């Protein structure tokens, strides 16, 4: 299950990280090193074992479906790279 250059290119695309073509071989080698080390997990017998997703032994709490904090667009927009008239400004999405 080795990671080749094509796989790194695909995963970088899925991750939305621009990785220049020339770094892909080195990156593939690094990720392979890490994944090979991870492969030892195959030795563990996990038949019939339930995956552990949370160590908190309580159900997720529920609350009333009401606004708690809100109504202050200026705080929400304070760190926006670009905003106009109370809105985020994003690059053109539809040509």
């Amino acid at each position, binding site marked *: 299950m080795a990671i080749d250059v094509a796989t790194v290119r695909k995963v970088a695309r899925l991750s*939305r990280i621009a990785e220049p073509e020339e770094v892909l071989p080195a990156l593939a080698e690094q990720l392979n090193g890490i994944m090979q080390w991870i492969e030892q997990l195959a030795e563990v017998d996990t038949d019939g*074992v339930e995956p552990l997703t949370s160590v908190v032994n309580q159900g997720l709490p529920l609350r009333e479906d009401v606004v708690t904090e809100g109504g202050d667009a200026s705080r929400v927009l304070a760190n926006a790279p670009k905003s106009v008239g109370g809105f985020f400004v994003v690059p053109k999405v539809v040509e």
Partner: protein
Amino acid sequence: MSNLTDLTLKAALDGLASKQFTSVELTQAHLTAMESARALNAYIAETPEKALQMAAASDVRRASGDAGPLDGAPLGIKDLFCTEGVGTTAGSKMLANFKPTYESTVTSQLWRDGAVMLGKLNLDEFAMGSSNESSASGPVINPWRAIGSDRKLTPGGSSGGSAAAVAAGLCLGATATDTGGSIRQPAAFTGTVGIKPTYGRCSRWGIVAFASSLDQAGPITRTVEDAALMLGSMAGHDPKDSTSLDLPVPDFSAFVGKSVKGLRIGVPKEYRVDGMPVEIEALWTQGTAWLKAAGCEVVEISLPNTKYALPAYYIVAPAEASSNLARYDGMRFGLRAAGSNLTETYENTRAQGFGDEVKRRILIGTYVLSHGYYDAYYIKALKVRRRISDDFDSAWTQCDAILTPTAPSAAFALGENASDPVAMYLNDVFTVTVNLAGLPGLSLPAGLSSEGLPLGLQLIGKPLDEGTLFSLASVMEKAADVSQRPQSWWRASS
């Protein structure tokens, strides 16, 4: 008055209470120390005006008999905690200009109890690292040096700034976070005390997320008693974090100095790893001897899946990180880089904003969650996580707490492990099991290596049993009597 930065948090609070000095004096002493210690690169941002303002307000409160549990105590804050109006970078270029409009729950509780903020402490980028070298602000330098050497050593990571600042007297205590060992390993490397409480004790709200099922906040301090004091303010239920435990916060300080007679201490045989330095093994044995002398019974236990904890962690943590860090898309906050279309804007933003280690983990996380690999890697890792957690559950039938080394070595040189990610990951071999199982773990300074560098021991407790850890740690702290501080070479060089 000249040694206000040498006081423990407890002694400083006593001094404030008995009017030996004011919070403004205490805070100013720390600000001066910080200025002369910039060579350590422990602080990303110093906030002197805010600090003096908060200190003056504290002095007014104290004068009117209104002082909180930490009133007037100057603390450092890891730059992963959002602080209202004060830049919060997470050690990343991505957040270089991010100024939160809200305060993290943990820090707001510290201010509620009267503490003073000195500044924001350096860390590995997004808390991903074990040496502080992945920080966009550059590495922190350990205040400790090997005897007769001026080689720059790592303070550990990711809470390297927190640990270095506490060790060097640049704050009375610091907040930190721990996802795989990021409180305990730096504490061990700097001769300080650090505790990662039970998962859910401290609210994660307002802490920049790395791996949400593993991240926990905790304090780094110079003594066990100080850690208990600080954790008491940091912990507590918060409706804004759905995994925050709705339980009362025990009086952790009351456990310090309590008898540990009759407690059973487990020593896991699987922690005797190949290549562990003899002096760490000897220190571990010494630790058990101290606890025996205090009336504890030491039992050998088995945690058979220990060696699989790190590989499981390096699936679970990157998987969660790749999902958490998807929010950095350049649209709502953080860096935005130019691109000719939307996708390119995303890709360029993330390529420029993230450093190499963060990118590596996002790629691994995306890979193990991608179609065709999800079951083979991610689900497999969660099953191994269950087995590791089960190992602890069966250990608790034989013992009340577990004693291990904190890290497999003393502080290493900056650059020493930088080229091999897996070698760097192995730093967390003794700490990461605790995160996977959600248990409390405390590291305390237990001795010095032959080179004169601090070595730590780790105590692991049952869920919610931080109290026992504080009792055991205070016994060991007394026995170890590690009163040495690093020599302040950084002052001469500035």
